[in-house]
């Protein structure tokens, strides 16, 4: 395809801007990576920028041998995998009926759900509820209260509403059952959106901090997010805390903290390309025609 001059300039500008933006996002991570691989003295002397100084893997060895990072990693995986599945299922159960124009009281229900998005309950009533359901110390306390994000549900509902109406009409004429219609037409046509929402839920679960902190008392069940956050906090102690000599003595070295951040981020980087492949242009139309 031939490009006009204007289009060439447009493309060039586009590439330059995107490259510059990408670079600004890459550099901080490179710096964290470099810190995690440098000697403690080099870090303290402020010598580390983009390349490790006095390269060593001591921080990682402390992290893996001296902290429960592996266990926490496993817990994060379980939390994320099951949590995403539960969330996607429930979100679908809410979004699909609400997207049907004929569904009873759909405006009322939608509004009632939006309402919960705005008037949330405080931490303590939520805790009392989870406790009375006997879910303290169980991962269900993490999965269930956050199972449907009204935000994600509305995105899914909006997507279903914008599927071509002809599809449903055609399916009805064929006499397809609701389940068949969902399984054969709705879901295959929604793969990019489902992938995106799974990513949103998955990322939120992976990063989940507050509810794990509150509902989980068993140290064996804590996740990566809580562990890494404790390391970051012990390093960058908030000003409001009365610091004890004990706290200074037990603070996590900068290198180990950076290694923790790396362990937390890298899996999310590895997952993204798998989601990306669903964003190919025309994926949906292709599915219909194919």
């Amino acid at each position, binding site marked *: 395809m031939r490009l006009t001059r204007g289009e060439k300039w447009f493309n060039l500008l586009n590439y330059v801007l995107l490259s510059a933006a*990408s670079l600004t996002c890459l550099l901080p991570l490179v710096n964290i990576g470099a810190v995690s691989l440098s000697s403690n003295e080099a870090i303290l002397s402020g010598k580390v920028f983009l390349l490790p100084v006095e390269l060593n893997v001591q921080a990682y060895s402390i992290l893996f041998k001296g902290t429960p990072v592996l266990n926490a990693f496993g817990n994060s995986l379980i939390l994320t995998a099951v949590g995403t599945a539960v969330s996607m299922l429930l979100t679908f159960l809410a979004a699909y009926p609400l997207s049907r124009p004929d569904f009873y009281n759909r405006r009322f*229900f939608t509004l009632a759900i939006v309402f919960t998005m705005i008037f949330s*309950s405080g931490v303590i009533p939520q805790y009392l509820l989870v406790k009375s359901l006997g879910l303290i110390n169980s991962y269900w306390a993490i999965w269930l209260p956050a199972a449907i994000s009204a935000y994600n549900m509305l995105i899914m509902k909006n997507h279903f509403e914008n599927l071509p109406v002809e599809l449903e009409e055609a399916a009805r004429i064929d006499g397809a059952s609701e389940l068949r219609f969902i399984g054969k037409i709705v879901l295959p046509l929604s793969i990019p959106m489902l992938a*995106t929402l799974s990513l949103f839920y998955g990322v939120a679960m992976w990063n989940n901090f507050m509810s794990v902190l509150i509902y989980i008392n068993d140290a064996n069940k804590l996740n990566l997010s809580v562990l890494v956050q404790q390391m970051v906090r012990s390093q960058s102690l908030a000003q409001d805390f009365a610091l004890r000599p004990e706290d200074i003595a037990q603070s996590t070295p900068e290198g180990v903290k950076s290694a923790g951040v790396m362990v937390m*981020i890298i899996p999310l980087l590895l997952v993204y390309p798998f989601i990306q492949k669903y964003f190919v242009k025309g994926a*949906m139309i292709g599915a219909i025609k194919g």
Partner: protein
Amino acid sequence: MQHTALDKNSPLPLKGSRLSTKQIQKRRRFKKNIPWLIMFVPVVAYYIIFKYIPMGGNIIAFKNYNFTDGIWGSPWVGVDNFKLLFTDPLAFATIRNTFVIAFLSIVVNFPFPVLLALMFNEVRKQWFKKTAQTLLYLPHFLSWVIVGGLVITLFAQESGTVNHLLQQWTGETFPFLYKPASWLALFLASGVWKEAGFAAIIYLAALGNIDPSLYESAALDGAGKMRKIWHVTLPGIRPVVVLMLILGMGRVMDVGFDQVYNLQNPIVSNVSEVISTYIYRMGLQGGQFSLTAAMGLFEAVIALALILATNAVARRFGQGLW
């Protein structure tokens, strides 16, 4: 489009000869609804148990909550907590700042993810597209403590990289972090930097839904790049854009605590103190659960008004959420 379908099938009480047709329609509608209702039962149960029941806890905003008596036993104090809140001289400034920052965030932060998605859409080289997308998505996972440190490294008056360059070029430095306007600009920019790439994902996914044949026919009509974006791409993602805008309005009041907390300094506190930092200090300094619940309720009422208003506008263009 959906609304016309909706109106046709609404069980409006019509009188007269079309009663039998109406009944048939009603029965047909009921049959269609059966599988949906079955699907929806767990959802209703979920919302009642996990959202509406704990929501009752918000009554502590009207009580003097204490641990011993619990939510139900604590004494009622009427609107005392709200009075305390609005007589506190800091509270007024706090609420004003929240509005200003919230408004600016919507205006500034909202368009960037859309723009990014459009830019990505024009990239032909797949490897570049994938790499750039992954990199831009990265900052979402850095905590604000780390981003706050980066902002200082770059913009500090004496040691900041930007000021080093400024000094070489102009011989003078600029206190970016200590002027309200430049602080606000940095605040917004760091928000864009951290979240735009991640927020763009939703539009990238929506772009995948556009029929390529539309571009082909536009090309046949002799449309240039800009006109294709204007006439094909943008309308294609419009529903998602509107949806995100409405949802954004509902969230606008909760100016993220971590972001403000990690970027603020005492010099700019007259613009940076917002509701979430106020609640944090109150909570931390004395466990003022009732007071913070009152502030939370106030915030929610504003958010509700905003989201209802936005939705009403969107409905006029056939894009309403409900």
